[in-house]
């Protein structure tokens, strides 16, 4: 019996590969079919906004999770790195004849456009080769954006990664703000167009593009996490001192994680630029980083699957599903309190609830696996049957006990409120362990 269960539980590696490939193809095909059939004026076209932005955010959030969740580095520089990626892409992608209208007040310094050059080199606009060339140029530039971001991250990492937890957070936040200012500076106007919009660079129109790019990048991150290096990162997260004692070079591995995370953040930034069709530095504030961090938490710190689910949920809620809260109607009635901004209040409340009551997030540290899915469905019938069998009894018991409970609730309310304070004092004892844990070597001296 147990033997049989064990074999039933695990699918073979080959099956998993086939399933994954089939799932990916199915999703991409579905998106493609939907895109062909849903006109932009349909209310369902918001779906594509969610897919595009969700895919981009997934990549950025997963790279943030690599840093915060897998390496335990509390870095808050994400928005700054996205900004670098976005600019690195945009500056070199603006077609030559559009430069004058984009750089209205400056003499553009970069006199070429990579996608354009490749389009011309491979057969000119309109031809098959030209189109391929443009794609190639875009891909090259996205890699370039990642590399530039990684390079700058390397330099920032040199001083910043020697700092500990909170100091690291605040220093990286500071660097992000400095980056933002530099990119807005008039003096660099001939490259960055000062604080003004960069636009007219090639963008994508199909949701497949960000899906595929983000998917590939996330796959690479997952491979990394599952490699020996990923284990070293996790060891640093769990216990820096023990990691170092087992021969893990702390600085080198922190730097690796930081640079790789920034590389993918840069690519994410480039895609965000393409999604928005314009870039300027203003929106890349610390609030953007906080938003990303909240998504990491909602998904689960230390879960790639969670980050991806969290991103799509977050984007769908904030851009689409909760919009009705702003529109002044509730169940068909006019509701005065539902004016613009109400959506965000509700949204913020939901987030606080998640942080307070589900600090492990949607996935905790678990990951998606075919075994998990199959086991879920395999055991579903039995569990459902059990649930419904037990339901009448439980309902009866519940309603029987209800009056007594309500009375008890109000009777004990005063004493519980006064008792709460004491209880919390007792609890704090354990907390101290977490409190100091990975902070100082000194504490374990004696």
């Amino acid at each position, binding site marked *: 019996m147990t033997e049989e269960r064990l074999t039933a539980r695990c699918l073979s590696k080959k099956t998993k590969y086939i399933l994954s490939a089939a799932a990916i193809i199915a999703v991409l095909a579905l998106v493609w079919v939907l895109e062909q059939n849903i006109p932009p004026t349909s209310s369902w076209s918001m779906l594509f906004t969610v897919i595009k932005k969700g895919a981009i955010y997934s990549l950025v959030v997963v790279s943030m999770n690599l840093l915060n969740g897998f390496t335990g580095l509390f870095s808050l520089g994400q928005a700054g790195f996205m900004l670098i990626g976005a600019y690195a892409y945009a500056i070199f992608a603006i077609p030559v004849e559009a430069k004058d209208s984009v750089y209205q007040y400056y003499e553009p310094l970069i006199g070429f456009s990579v996608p354009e050059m490749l389009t011309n080199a491979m057969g000119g606009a309109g031809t098959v080769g030209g189109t391929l060339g443009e794609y190639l140029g875009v891909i090259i530039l996205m890699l370039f954006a990642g590399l530039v971001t990684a390079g700058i991250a390397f330099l920032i990492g040199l001083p910043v990664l020697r700092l500990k937890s909170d100091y690291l957070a605040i220093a990286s936040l500071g660097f992000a703000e400095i980056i933002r200012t530099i990119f807005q500076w008039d003096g660099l106007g001939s490259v960055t167009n000062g604080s003004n919009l960069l636009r007219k660079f090639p963008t994508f129109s199909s949701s497949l593009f960000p899906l595929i790019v983000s998917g590939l990048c996330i796959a*690479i991150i997952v*491979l*990394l996490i599952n*490699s*020996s*290096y990923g*284990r*070293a990162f*996790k*060891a640093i*997260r*769990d*216990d820096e*001192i*023990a*990691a*170092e*004692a*087992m*021969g*893990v*070079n*702390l600085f080198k591995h922190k730097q*690796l994680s930081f640079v*790789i995370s920034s590389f993918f953040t840069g690519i994410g930034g480039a895609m965000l630029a393409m999604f928005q069709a314009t870039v300027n530095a203003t929106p890349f504030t610390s609030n953007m980083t906080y938003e990303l961090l909240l998504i990491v938490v909602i998904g689960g710190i*230390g879960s790639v699957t969670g980050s991806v689910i969290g991103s799509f949920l977050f984007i769908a809620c904030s851009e689409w599903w909760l919009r009705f809260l702003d529109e002044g109607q509730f169940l068909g009635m006019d509701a005065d309190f539902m004016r613009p901004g109400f959506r965000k209040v509700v949204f913020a409340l939901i987030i606080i609830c998640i942080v307070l009551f589900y600090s492990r997030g949607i996935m905790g*540290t678990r990951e998606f696996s075919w075994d998990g899915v199959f086991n879920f469905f395999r055991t579903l019938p039995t569990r459902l049957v059990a649930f419904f069998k037990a339901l009448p009894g439980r309902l009866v018991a519940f309603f029987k006990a209800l009056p007594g409970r309500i009375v008890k609730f109000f009777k004990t309310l005063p004493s519980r409120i006064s008792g709460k304070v004491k209880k919390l004092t007792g609890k704090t004892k354990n907390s101290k362990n977490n409190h100091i844990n990975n902070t100082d*070597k*000194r504490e*374990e*001296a*004696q």
Partner: protein
Amino acid sequence: MSKENVLRVSDITMQFGGVVAVDDLSLEVNKGEIIGLIGPNGAGKTTAFNVITGVYAPTNGAVALNGEVIVENHPQGKMKNLYKGKNDGKYKDVKVLTPDKITKLGVARTFQNIRLYKGMTVFENVLVAMHMNLESGIFGATFRSGKAKREEAQMREDAMNLLRMFDLEKNKDDLATSLPYGKQRHLEIARALATKPKLLLLDEPAAGMNPQESAELMRLVERIRDEFDLSVLMIEHHMQVVMGICERIYVLDYGALIAQGNPEEIQNNPRVIEAYLGVDD
């Protein structure tokens, strides 16, 4: 007794400000030996470990591994005035290796207050310790190059062997922290062995164990020494364990070495008895 020297700690003083945690400590470990480091609580034993493994830079003194100096320091800056040791001026060089470098040179340790990687499985805990010997770069490892695949397979096999030796293979996929206390101690040793050390530092390996478990541990330590061809330096409070397997014992009190010798000598040393039991006036 012309045994090959593995570890030589010379004149180590460790001060935190004006507080002397280790006072002018010298000790030696030779190849294949099991050496005990004992002393009352707060005597500076763990601090000595921390100096040897590079967690702290000593205020003065040197540590040599296989004849090669890995740590050397002398009082500098503010410490010049605060230094209370005797050997001022004897050490000129400053050499402070980070713990990971020292581990690479062949010193592995366990921790008094078990420091396993909480979020990782038993198997992964051991694999991490093998990471430092990985030759593939990050690209190879990520994209699973042929070499990386071979290395990974080798690592997994070695790790399984280690787990088997410590009777942990059934717990392979459990979270490290879900293990019972005694097994966590074993896992820490297994993890330390995974770094392929020449010298193993055990910080109270028998803490919290009953006599039977302690006895098993003794046999295990001896077996490790023989099978892995290494030397062991251990801090231990269980006199049964220390006296049972250690060839030589160093006794620390208030940071300073008060006695050394074989178990018998130590047991009869009046200063040791005094340190442990106090004196009647």
